[in-house]
């Protein structure tokens, strides 16, 4: 009996160490349920998960990059460019008259945008050895510019409307609200599996902690980095599909303001920006948390600027907590070891 309670206590300690956001999230959920009117309504829960789904998908990809100690600014441009190219195919291209085919081709094209941007980033970071900070900033600028130019070439407006109805299923329209949620869950599960159970995932952590050790241990560092950037691009492209379908519009500004939320979710979740620590469990929690904050604050009618202030403070606090936790953990471990000797 005693060992069992000990086990639970240890488990709780582990959770607090690996994902300090979890108890905070739980408390916020309970508070929201009790004090925020309509929070626990079916409609709001549906909205909550729908809003979390695109963010989760794009965050999954970026988590890989952050675990490797890098950053990927270009995901927002993948969202935007994918959106206008997909919308163009579904609205203006010759195959637009055949919606099922247009939708299929559009999705493939959107994913291809993610693949291309990801591979360019991968080449720049892995082969040319550019810092990801610079490489992805460059691709972000270039491709979001392409998105705006492309949109202005095909339409006078700032967005492309008139997408086929069938496409909106992917955005969870009407009774299909489970579709994007399930897609997001599937994407997350796939990434989680990739990170935890494959050689690639294990190599990624090793490269993130110490690339020199990883190289000498025979890990193909370049390949791993290429794959990381590729996955990040692909996940952003998938998020582009979901977000375009949900907003029912192709927009060159689709991803413009998303980056802060992406990084906020990943950092608040507990993944270290220095690389090597954290993972997709943390990102999932972070995404839920950021979505929750936005949702409840809107529900309470809090000024948007106040929400941004709160987000900023949360990032600071969670980074600090992570640091304190890390140091504390290390110190206690060392002392325990000393004691054992």
């Amino acid at each position, binding site marked *: 009996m005693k060992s069992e309670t000990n086990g639970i206590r240890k488990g709780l300690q582990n959770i607090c160490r690996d994902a300090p956001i979890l108890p905070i999230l739980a408390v916020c959920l309970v508070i929201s349920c009790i004090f925020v009117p309509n929070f626990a309504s079916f409609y709001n829960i549906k909205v909550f998960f729908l809003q979390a789904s695109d963010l989760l998908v794009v965050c999954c990809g970026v988590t890989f990059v952050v675990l490797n100690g890098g950053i990927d600014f270009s995901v927002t441009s993948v969202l935007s460019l994918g959106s206008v190219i997909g919308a163009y195919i579904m609205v203006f291209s010759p195959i637009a008259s055949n919606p099922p085919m247009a939708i299929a081709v559009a999705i493939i094209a959107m994913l291809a945008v993610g693949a291309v941007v990801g591979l360019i980033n991968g080449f720049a970071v892995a082969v040319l050895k550019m810092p990801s900070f610079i490489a992805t900033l460059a691709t972000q600028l270039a491709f979001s510019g392409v998105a705006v130019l492309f949109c202005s070439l095909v339409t006078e407006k700032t967005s492309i409307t008139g997408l086929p109805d069938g496409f909106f299923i992917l955005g969870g329209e009407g009774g299909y609200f489970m579709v994007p949620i399930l897609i997001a869950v599937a994407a997350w599960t796939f990434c989680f599996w990739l990170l935890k*159970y*494959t*050689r*690639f995932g*294990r*190599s990624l*952590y*090793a490269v993130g*902690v*110490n690339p*020199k*050790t*990883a*190289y*000498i*241990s*025979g*890990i*193909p560092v370049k390949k791993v980095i290429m794959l990381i950037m590729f996955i990040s691009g692909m996940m952003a492209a998938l998020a582009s599909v979901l977000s375009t379908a949900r907003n029912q519009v192709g927009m060159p500004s689709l991803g413009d303001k998303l980056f802060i939320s992406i990084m906020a979710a990943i950092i608040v979740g507990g993944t270290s920006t220095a690389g*090597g*620590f954290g993972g997709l469990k943390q990102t999932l929690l972070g995404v839920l948390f950021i979505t929750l904050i936005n949702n409840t604050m809107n529900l309470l009618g809090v000024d948007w600027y106040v929400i941004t202030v709160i987000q900023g403070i949360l990032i600071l606090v969670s980074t600090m907590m992570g640091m304190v936790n890390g140091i504390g953990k*290390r110190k206690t*471990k*060392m*002392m*325990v*070891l*000393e*004691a*054992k*000797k």
Partner: protein
Amino acid sequence: MKNTALRLSGIEKSFSGVKVLHGINLSIGEGEICGLVGENGAGKSTLMNVIGGVISKDAGTMEVLGEAYSPVTPADAANAGIAFVHQELNLFTNLTVAENMFIEAFPVHMGKINYQKIRKTAQEKIKEYDLPVAPDMKIEALPAGIRQMIEISKALMKKPRILIFDEPTTSLSFKEKEKLFHTINGLKGNGITIIYISHILEDVFALCDTISVLRDGNIISTDNACDVTKGEIIQKMVGREMNQIYPAIEKSITDEIVFETKDIVWQNKVAGVSLTLKRGEIVGIYGLMGSGRTEFLRTAFGIEKPDSGEIIVHGERIKKQTPLQSIKKRIAFVTEDRHQEGLLLQKPIFENLSLVALPSLSGKAGVVNRKRERKLVEEAIENLKIKVSDPESQTAESLSGGNQQKVVFGKWVMNAPGIFFLDEPTRGVDIGAKFEIYTIIAEMAANGATILMVSSEMEELIGTCDRILVMKEGRITGEIGKEEFNQEAIIRLAL
């Protein structure tokens, strides 16, 4: 009778209810050099941390030069005139030699660092210790031995009354060591008290006036160095009879050549090295710092790309040697710098151990077979006797040096290699763990593995190797077989 520089009485310390120090009593006379020896885990680090104000003691009293001393922070220790030279280097690799020497107190003139002054003073220090560096050189460009010397000169900048050395010579060459001992003796002459912690008993005997042995949190004995023998000290340290440090394991060398290099040249460090290794052989490479021994080993493994020359593994010429290529050919490489290149320090031991074996543990789809992985890791921990409670959560940095080194060995052993390249395999490892590592090496050779081992400890090479190659200025200057092993002959080739 000399004054007492440092007196410890009844020092006790427990961590989480486990007693680590059981009432330490020790007094060291002013101007004395006291050697403190003991296995890793005997409590040396804890004792030093108590003296240094890093952790607080549970009971007991301390006196420094007759005055009561109870430090709360490391700064208190510094104010009391106690300075440390640590085993782990504490230099900023991105700064210059001069900047590192002054890092704790830059001379400032009107808010601006007086670079001229620090450069000048640093130049004087460099001359004093005869270091082959310039004050403006970045630390990252310097080899480990020179870094250690800079660390020592940095500690001396504080003009301490009591100076504590923690394994200062592990990365030093013979010549540098001589110089260091000369310096230490000079300090002694100036009335500075020295506590010298080391695994290398020869050094302790050569240098110290008294030798105290620490075991399991107790001071077992304090003797004058001239009154005891090395064997007696070892016996006291390990608490058991140790007839021989080097294991005698029967093995046979075949004529099959498994590894060969021809005229390897790399930059200006390696100037045409050719050698052949036979199955079951243990070959040592001895050389002073800067002789190119480490650089050659790294080139042979593929970490550095040779400018010219051939590498032949199992009769097959390797066109482009990379670590991955070497691993595929079942070559292992134990680095001299396990913190920077050997381990994922902050990651669990489990992940460290399975790093090299990942490809063989995963199928075509790249999915890791967790069951097999766990089994192999458990085997490695058991075979190498790595002291770890929970390999899946305990990080590599929490281990002692010896156990860390065993983890580095373990990650290679898990890939079942046929050829081992070992660079300073026992650096920073206590004597008990050393014996274990020698045993591991000998057993591997007995099982048909080939071992190429670089070391700056001549005795260790003589004890373990079948033949020793001596390097100097990037070339092999001689080869000595087991029957003709002779320290003098080796040194002559190296100098």
